[in-house]
């Protein structure tokens, strides 16, 4: 029989997270700090709107681009939060989570051989999606000493005449790093000068602690070369609703819509109605959740300080990224030993790229009570390791 499989997909490494998930889920009474989604349930008024739409019989496809009311609300939101004006009818596409937007955005923008710059550590899907789109992924290894921010030097060094697109994943999963206005201005200048497009994944934009998030799309000359990706999962605790969006130049959105139309048809209708409510009346929920994450973030940073575990201070998303290089173990070895010994699950930093080696991703989408127990276990574990050495 002939090989039924595509070489391209077979050659893509499975996500390192998957492997860890399989091991962790076989154990009992595990405390997990390994989850990349909010611990809050979707606020009730948003769920209620979803239920109401079902009761009213809103059970049909929407237009390929998504409900026009929702696209209008997204434009209002973007105008109010990041100060960029988009046209609801031609510059916004509603997708099945931010992840679909990443996939079809890449497919709509690259030709075979084009280079796509991917700063790592970062979310697990950029590299495989770039490969599936036929591009050549070029990894930029972000550094602990820069607090895992992308510097203009790192960017300039990675650019060749084949570079088409830069993926800009900030606020960052897994590091919690953000980029501030000054850094974004530098990056924007280089992109304009070298004629490079940007895919800015801003799914964690609402979760920054300190200054408000700044979008690269608001920099001079950038709106026309940026595909902005955002969604409802993180800000409104709506992961299971699978709803995201892309906003950008009409020509790119049009081609993305084509793929979306053939592959997906439209994003879930119920979720779209719920999302309209989220954007109209959800600010106070976001505020409440952000404050809560910020408290947990401080709690963890303080716990690390007490156990003398080095960790740069992250100002975004809901992750901290402590360094475990002193223990002379790979992050996978460390995470496995921690799981075996203390029943505590964290994700090895190496699951997010080679430059995550020597670090752990610890999520704080958990209650303080749970974090307190978990930090107790982590402290015991590293004390034991230090005693041994």
């Amino acid at each position: 029989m002939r090989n039924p499989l595509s070489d391209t997909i077979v050659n893509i490494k499975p996500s390192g997270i998957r492997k860890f998930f399989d091991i962790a889920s076989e154990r009992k009474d595990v405390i997990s700090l390994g989850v990349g989604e909010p611990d809050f349930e979707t606020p009730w008024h948003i769920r209620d709107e979803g239920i109401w739409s079902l009761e009213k019989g809103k059970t049909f496809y929407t237009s390929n681009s998504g409900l026009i009311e929702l696209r209008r609300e997204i434009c209002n939101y973007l105008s109010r939060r990041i100060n960029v004006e988009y046209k609801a009818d031609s510059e916004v596409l509603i997708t099945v989570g931010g992840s679909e937007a990443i996939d079809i955005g890449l497919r709509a923008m690259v030709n075979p051989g084009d280079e796509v710059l991917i700063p790592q550590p970062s979310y697990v899907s950029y590299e495989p999606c770039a490969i599936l789109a036929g591009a050549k992924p070029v990894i930029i290894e972000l550094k602990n000493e820069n607090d895992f921010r992308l510097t203009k030097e790192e960017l300039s060094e990675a650019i060749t005449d084949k570079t088409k697109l830069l993926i800009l994943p900030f606020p960052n999963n897994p590091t919690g790093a953000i980029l501030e206005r000054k850094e974004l201005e530098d990056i924007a200048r280089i992109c304009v000068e070298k004629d490079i497009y940007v895919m800015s994944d801003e799914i964690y934009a609402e979760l920054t602690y300190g200054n408000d998030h700044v979008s690269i799309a608001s920099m001079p000359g950038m709106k026309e070369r940026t595909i902005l990706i955002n969604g409802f999962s993180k800000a409104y605790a709506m992961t299971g609703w699978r709803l995201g969006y892309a906003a950008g130049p009409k020509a790119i959105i049009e081609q993305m819509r084509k793929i979306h139309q053939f592959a997906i048809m439209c994003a879930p209708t119920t979720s779209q109605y719920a999302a309209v409510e989220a954007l109209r009346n959800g600010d106070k929920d976001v505020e409440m959740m952000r404050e809560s994450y910020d408290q947990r973030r401080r709690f963890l940073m303080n716990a690390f300080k007490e156990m003398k575990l080095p960790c740069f201070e992250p100002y975004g998303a809901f992750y901290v990224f402590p360094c475990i290089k002193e223990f002379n173990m790979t992050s996978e070895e460390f995470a496995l030993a921690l799981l075996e010994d203390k029943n505590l699950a964290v994700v090895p930093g190496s699951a997010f790229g080679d430059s995550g080696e020597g670090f752990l991703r610890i999520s704080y989408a958990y209650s303080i009570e749970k974090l307190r127990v978990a930090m107790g276990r982590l402290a015991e574990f590293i004390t034991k390791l230090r005693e041994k050495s």
Partner: protein
Amino acid sequence: MREKILNYIEKNSRVDLAELSVLLGMEQVDLANELEAMEKEGIICGYHTLIDWDKVTSERINALIEVRVTPQRGQGFDAIAERIYKYPEVEATYLISGGYDLLVTLEGKTLKEISNFVSSKLSTLDSVISTTTCFILKKYKDHGTIMKTKNEDERMIVTP
């Protein structure tokens, strides 16, 4: 900052000072001073515990009593409200807009205890015109807290 402190302790007043100062990103001594100041100023009026008495064997009965009264010249409703809220069995007293004037909540051990209070103490007050007593049959949610046991964490154990 005060609002942040209050928002937190409104839901959980049992947290220790050292931990709360970390959560709010302030010095422990500043936090202690703020709390003391707010207690003195009467902003923080007490630290209570929310108890689901249904899960405890001892019986308790709660009632809401709608009271219509004649306001008094020069004092409005304040004097009559005071006469009512001074009874220790009265848990809360509110002046209400709408069909009646005062809403009084009561806690007692038996139905008789509550009806005695209403008939012999409350209704006999000069300014009280009428009362309507409503007994609470079941508490679903109290002080922003749902009384049902919480759901387990339904998320998968590790996700990207």
